[in-house]
């Protein structure tokens, strides 16, 4: 009896059971909302113990769908109320116009107030539309997580069985311990000249945003020259102003150089621990899109938006500020490793072979490759450029897109391996996908015209690769240096936006300058109804 009790206790200590999960599974009472609110990585880790059945998942999906429809209907009703309010305000404006040919001061003030309220109402409608999109994205993510919970335990058993049988290294790129000397990564040096030509062409076309350090240096040189001129003039006020500007420019230059230096170090660390056989050239450029892209020959472009971005267009349309960026150094490293994988595997060359008129229309190919190997170029811009390309003969055939998706999956797997070899937590990349899926959507359906596989597939693949990778001690998740780099981007970006906005004030005008219609600016109420609150 004592032996039996001892065995039970030992077993309980060795195999801690998620009692809550078991209770839930057996009782059928789960808090699905709480469950799918957890991240993909966390859920994949617990999927086996959660043991979600297909029947349960189906029921939960139905619940979520009903919730989504309810939420969208609620938002629709709110939007209708705001639109009705806007219509009423326009009616008042019409009455005002019918009243007299010119405005008295009171009428002018009333007109301004009505303009403000109408602009605020239109902005609120845009915000409600955004919230409807959020509801769709939330639903897509919930459904994808449920699917993962159902399918992952079986997949993870297969992986475990493969590892157990000693066959794990037979998978594609399975020989991770040989990174750096393994076969299948030859010929990278042949792409260097091509990459240089592409960059020259892109610079000529002006599609490369300004580099952070180059722009900072240029601004510093300008501030220095202006300070010199101010000193020659002898005007005290002018000298003081120029001195202040010079100090700001100097600080920006120091920050920009430190930031670029940091990025080079992170990229260099990954490059040294990859199958790269050529020098890596990294460019940090000013772009709010959280993205990076690689060109053949070892040229990698990283947008500042990958570290920190604010969706300015959304802010302009809806008043809502949405911030995005990699949360940790391992997430950044994962993205860089992914881009380096495109270079080592020469995906651009493979893709170019599938383009029917590549030799004739060089320029189109450059842009096409840029689109394909960037993370999330806007779909409208994609069609715009595609149309432009179609106008000169390039067709983005389904075959090309299919090859592009294969290349992306290879880059995901190789990227995880390179990050791991460089000492980073390979799940960083998966966490990045998690947040991108939650923020941007496009979770589970790979439409034919998408160049990348759906986020769901990418999360699945990178998590699976993580299981195959041999365990390593002290994998880096985050560093203080990364957080400082993010702060540097924030500060530089704020200074840059202030400078751009100040310059805009001296700009010529095509239309009347927009009135300051923020409720704070005009001291008008945020919302107004005939009876009761709109929202």
């Amino acid at each position, binding site marked *: 009896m004592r032996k039996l009790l001892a065995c039970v206790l030992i077993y309980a200590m060795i195999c801690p059971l998620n009692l809550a999960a078991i209770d839930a599974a057996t009782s059928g009472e789960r808090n699905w909302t709480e469950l799918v609110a957890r991240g993909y990585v966390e859920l994949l880790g617990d999927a086996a113990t959660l043991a979600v059945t297909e029947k349960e998942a189906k029921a939960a999906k139905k619940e979520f769908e009903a919730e989504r429809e309810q939420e969208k209907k609620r938002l629709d009703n709110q939007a209708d109320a705001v639109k009705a309010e806007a219509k009423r305000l326009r009616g008042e404006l019409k009455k005002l116009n019918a009243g007299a040919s010119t405005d008295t001061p009171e009428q002018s003030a009333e007109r301004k107030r009505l303009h403000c309220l109408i602009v605020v109402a239109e902005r609120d409608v845009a915000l409600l539309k955004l919230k409807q999109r959020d509801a769709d994205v939330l639903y897509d993510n919930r459904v994808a997580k449920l699917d993962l919970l159902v399918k992952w335990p079986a997949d993870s058993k297969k992986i475990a069985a493969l590892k157990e049988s000693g066959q794990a290294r037979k998978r594609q790129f399975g020989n991770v311990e040989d990174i750096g000397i393994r076969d299948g990564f030859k010929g990278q040096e042949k792409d260097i000249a091509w990459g240089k030509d592409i960059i020259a062409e892109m610079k000529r*076309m*002006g*599609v490369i945003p*300004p580099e952070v350090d180059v722009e900072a240096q240029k601004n510093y040189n300008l501030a220095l020259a202006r300070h010199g001129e101010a000193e020659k003039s002898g005007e005290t006020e002018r000298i003081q102003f120029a001195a202040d500007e010079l100090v700001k420019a100097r600080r920006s230059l120091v920050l920009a150089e430190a930031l670029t230096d940091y990025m080079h170090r992170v990229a260099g660390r990954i490059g040294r621990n990859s199958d790269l056989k050529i020098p890596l050239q990294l460019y940090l450029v000013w*772009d*709010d899109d959280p993205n990076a892209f690689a060109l053949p020959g070892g040229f990698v472009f990283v947008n500042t938006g990958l570290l920190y971005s604010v969706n300015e*267009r959304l802010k302009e349309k809806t008043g809502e500020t949405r911030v995005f960026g990699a949360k940790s150094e391992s997430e950044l490293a994962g993205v860089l490793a992914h881009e380096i994988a495109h270079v080592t595997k020469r995906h651009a060359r493979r893709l170019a072979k599938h383009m029917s008129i590549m030799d004739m229309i060089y320029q189109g190919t450059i842009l096409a490759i840029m689109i394909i190997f960037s993370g999330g170029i*806007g*779909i*409208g*811009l994609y*069609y*715009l*450029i595609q*149309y*432009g390309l179609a*106008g*000169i003969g390039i067709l983005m055939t389904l075959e090309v897109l299919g090859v592009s998706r294969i290349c992306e999956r290879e880059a995901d797997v190789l990227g995880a391996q390179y990050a791991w070899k460089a000492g980073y937590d390979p799940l960083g990349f998966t966490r990045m996908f998690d947040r991108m899926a939650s923020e941007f959507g496009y979770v589970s359906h790979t439409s034919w015209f998408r160049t990348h596989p759906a986020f769901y597939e990418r999360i699945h693949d990178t998590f699976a690769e993580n299981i195959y990778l041999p365990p390593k001690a002290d994998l880096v998740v985050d560093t203080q240096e990364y957080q400082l780099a993010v702060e540097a981007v924030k500060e530089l970006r704020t200074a840059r936006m202030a400078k*751009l906005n100040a*310059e*805009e004030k001296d*700009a*010529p*005008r*095509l*239309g009347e*300058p927009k009135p300051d219609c923020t409720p704070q600016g005009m001291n008008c109420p945020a919302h107004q109804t005939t009876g009761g609150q709109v929202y």
Partner: protein
Amino acid sequence: MRRALAVLCFLLLSAPLVSAQERVTVPVVVTDGFSFAQNLTPDYFLVKEGKEMRRVLDVKFNAEAPVNVAILLEYTRKLPTSPVYIGYPYPWQDVVMEEAAVAYRLTMRLGDEDRVALATYDRQVRILADFTRNKGRIVDHLESLINNSGGPSDNEVSTADAVVDALAKLAPSTGKHKLALVIIGTGFDTFGQKGLEDALQAARSSGIQIFFLQVGWQAIQKIQEQYEYYRLQNGRNPDPWALVDPETEYSFAFQHYRGVARASAGFGQSVRFVGEAEGIAEGILLWVRNRHLVTYDAPPLKPDGKLKKLKIEIVKEVKSAEGTVLTLKAITVDGRRRPKEKKQ
């Protein structure tokens, strides 16, 4: 003493009155078709207004000054001349896509310091983005034009109204900034308040260089095919209101607005394939960057509605970097005109 004073008064009173002169400033592009002359001084220019020579007072040139380009895109639901009776679906989406692709290439050609504004027009101008250095914002707006499932709201278009309206909006900024107006569209006028003559007058007096890029060639070809097929089948024109066939009308539209562009020291070009847009955009920017502002004196115009033609010649030799003498032409506004005053 009194006699001397009397003679002086007589001379002063009988002296011919000096007619008031006004300062007229016009943009001038000096080119041989390949290269552009820069930094020319007043002694290089010979100005003739009507048949009279005018004195050049000043010439300004600054190739480094940022360029401010206002892009006007035609955005109308119905391609004019697409006959109602044929039943061919109006391919306005194809035209908008083409316009957006051309506008995109032009935007991307601009330098960091250059600004761009974007507006659409049907019978009136709608501003999408005021002048900005943020090219990404313009690209976003172009994307939204393409993705706008609702499409244009108007079935008519008036390029003349758009030109006059846009130039009026830009007027307060003229003189302080280097401005250019680029109109991308078919050039049709189906219904509006202003006519070609109004557009010409506004163009020549604005001081802003206008460039007209005609698109929609492939859409017009499709409509022409339908038109000819209908005529063959039915023995008559499908659209009784159209005096000419769609292709001819398209050609007329090009002539009209190329003329408007030329009247402002700009040029017009028909964009048959979007790939041509790169070279055209480069040409536009070269014309704007390398413009001289020539100021001359001239008597005020009589309100007789007559066009006083302006001709500017380059009278001194200009050599290229290699030392060859260039055969240069000075391209400027076509003249000045003051509309007839209506007798009350």
